[in-house]
């Protein structure tokens, strides 16, 4: 009951003040706007594409795609194999890989008849090969892929990316994202925790709670839990801002940027962030409890932030970090995020990181409770 009252007070303090709520959500919005603007400035605005697409086999769907291309204000030249410059599908594929052509569409023999049910017994197939390193190719793939996905089934449809663009996109995301996430998560945690812990200590309102019969662990948890929830709002806002704007910043499509990370990958990313937030909140709360003023706590927290940044840079840009990294708080989350984003995700690595971060959080909460009991810390001059 006491813990609940302590938590409710923190939530009331936060949600009763719209300014605090805005400061949590605003960073994500700003990140999205600024990064998107930067991306557009670097990679230009709306493109006018003129696609060159090789087609193997025949289907009326090509006309449907052509119509959609025209509707978008683009043009497409569909070249049927064998053709001059590309006699076979393999040669056409090479041209897609080299960027000379935008895509290769392959239809099985009697594709349209098979769909209509008047052809043979075998399942008709359609294949789309594109090159995500090329903006034009990616744009065509998005358009044609969407049409084929919804075209009169049943038929087997496969999409393949002939380039290493997904890996490129992933490596870009893997390099930048964990670093950015840690910084934004830390900023979100810092803005609420410093005020709530160091601020209350400085103003003497924390001591008023200490005179009551509430247990010190309840008081510590009553800070860490709600502050973590509140920080998570800020962290989620910043995370979404980064996720949504990074493709634009990198000049690639959203599909290419997020392809392969998958639902499980996003669940893991979310869990890692959720485990890092209370850890960082607890760490800042320890520093805040030890400090006499918000100003002093800010100074110490800046050192903590630099340490976090060094750890995340270390993980993001130094290769060959061993399994031992899982034991290091924050670093374990960064390394795990990196694994998720590069597609080398180890579910156990992520879960161990999440578990260890929660254990570290529990230890820090215990430390806060001890500090709250310390007269030298709470009432020392």
């Amino acid at each position, binding site marked *: 009951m006491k813990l609940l009252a302590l938590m409710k007070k923190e939530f009331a303090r936060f949600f009763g003040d719209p300014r605090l709520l805005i400061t949590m959500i605003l960073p994500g919005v700003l990140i999205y706007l600024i990064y998107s603007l930067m991306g557009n400035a670097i990679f230009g605005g709306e493109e006018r594409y003129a696609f060159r697409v090789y087609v193997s086999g025949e289907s009326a769907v090509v006309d449907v795609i052509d119509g959609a291309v025209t509707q978008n204000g683009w043009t497409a030249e569909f070249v049927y194999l064998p053709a001059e410059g590309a006699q076979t599908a393999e040669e056409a594929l090479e041209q897609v890989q080299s960027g000379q052509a935008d895509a290769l569409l392959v239809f099985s023999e009697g594709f349209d008849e098979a769909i209509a049910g008047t052809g043979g017994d075998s399942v008709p197939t359609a294949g789309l090969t594109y090159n995500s390193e090329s903006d034009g190719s990616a744009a065509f793939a998005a358009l044609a892929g969407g049409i084929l996905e919804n075209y009169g089934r049943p038929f087997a449809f496969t999409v393949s990316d002939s380039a290493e663009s997904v890996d490129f996109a992933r490596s870009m995301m893997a390099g930048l994202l964990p670093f950015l996430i840690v910084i934004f998560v830390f900023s979100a945690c810092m803005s609420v925790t410093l005020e709530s812990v160091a601020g209350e200590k400085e103003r003497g309102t924390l001591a008023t709670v200490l*005179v009551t019969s509430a247990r010190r662990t309840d008081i510590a948890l009553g800070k860490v839990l709600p502050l973590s929830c509140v920080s998570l709002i800020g962290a989620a806002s910043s995370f979404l801002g980064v996720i949504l704007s990074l493709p634009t910043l990198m000049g690639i499509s959203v599909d290419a940027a997020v392809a392969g990370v998958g639902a499980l990958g996003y669940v893991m990313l979310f869990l890692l962030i959720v485990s890092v937030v209370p850890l960082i909140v607890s760490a800042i709360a320890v520093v805040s409890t030890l400090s006499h003023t918000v100003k002093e706590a800010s100074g110490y927290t800046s050192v903590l932030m630099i340490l976090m940044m060094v750890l995340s840079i270390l993980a993001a840009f130094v290769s060959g970090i061993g399994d031992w990294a899982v034991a290091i708080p924050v670093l374990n989350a960064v390394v795990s995020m990196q694994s998720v984003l590069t597609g080398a995700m180890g579910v156990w690595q992520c879960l161990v990181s999440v578990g260890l971060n929660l254990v570290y959080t529990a230890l820090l909460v215990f430390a806060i409770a001890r500090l709250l009991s310390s007269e030298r810390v709470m009432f020392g001059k």
Partner: protein
Amino acid sequence: MLSTETPFSDFGEEVVRAENLRKTFTLSRKQQRLERTDLPRKVAVDGLSFTAQRGEIYGLLGPNGAGKTTTLRMLSTLIRPDSGDAFVCGHSVVREPQKVRDAIGFMTSDLKLENFFTPSYLFDFFGAMHGLEKSALAARKRELFGRFGIDRFAEVKVRDLSTGMLQKVSLVVSIVHDPAVVIFDEPTNGLDVLTAKVVTDFLAELKAMGKSILLSTHIFSLVEKLCDRVGIIIDGKMAADGTLAEVCAGDSLEDTFFAIYRGIKGVTV
């Protein structure tokens, strides 16, 4: 109605008993310079013993730095004595701090209320901190807010209250759980005459309710007006302890205090 029953009937009349309380603090180099001493530690309270009786107001009187606040902080369990012990309603401040905190209401200028909240919210919050049920809390809020004229300001944020009203709210919040013993550290310090009167009236009312009150002050008139017993602390030691009549022996409290002070310090004041 406010309860005048105390949960410590088996403890007899001594609601507070301090036994050889001693507290020292480490001095930083800066503090050593300010204190003009080479000693690394300062003895704030040195073997202090006294008792406060049920239903009475006990005043700890002494100059600044005498150890009054340190003593009250030990009694309220905010700090631990180096040696000795004190018992509040029979509970040891060293071994049972949580039970002591349940039995006391402590108010000092160092303990503040959050500006962002209203008196009503804070009353409920601190009531929950002391484990009070909602219905009991609501009844107590009605009674205390009505009695001290806070009801009209119940939903006004603390930052918008006048100093006098804020002091009333602080007093009321400190006794939200109807404690048997109320401890006030320098309750009128820094207050204007009107607000100080609010506090002294409040103390008198608490006494009328049968509460046991322990207060520290360096204001003679406050002790003479309110206190049944007085303890004079000088340099952390109890220099005199007893009823006002016993301590003063016919003189005024002020004359008595300075006579004792001169006797101990060997200086003319």
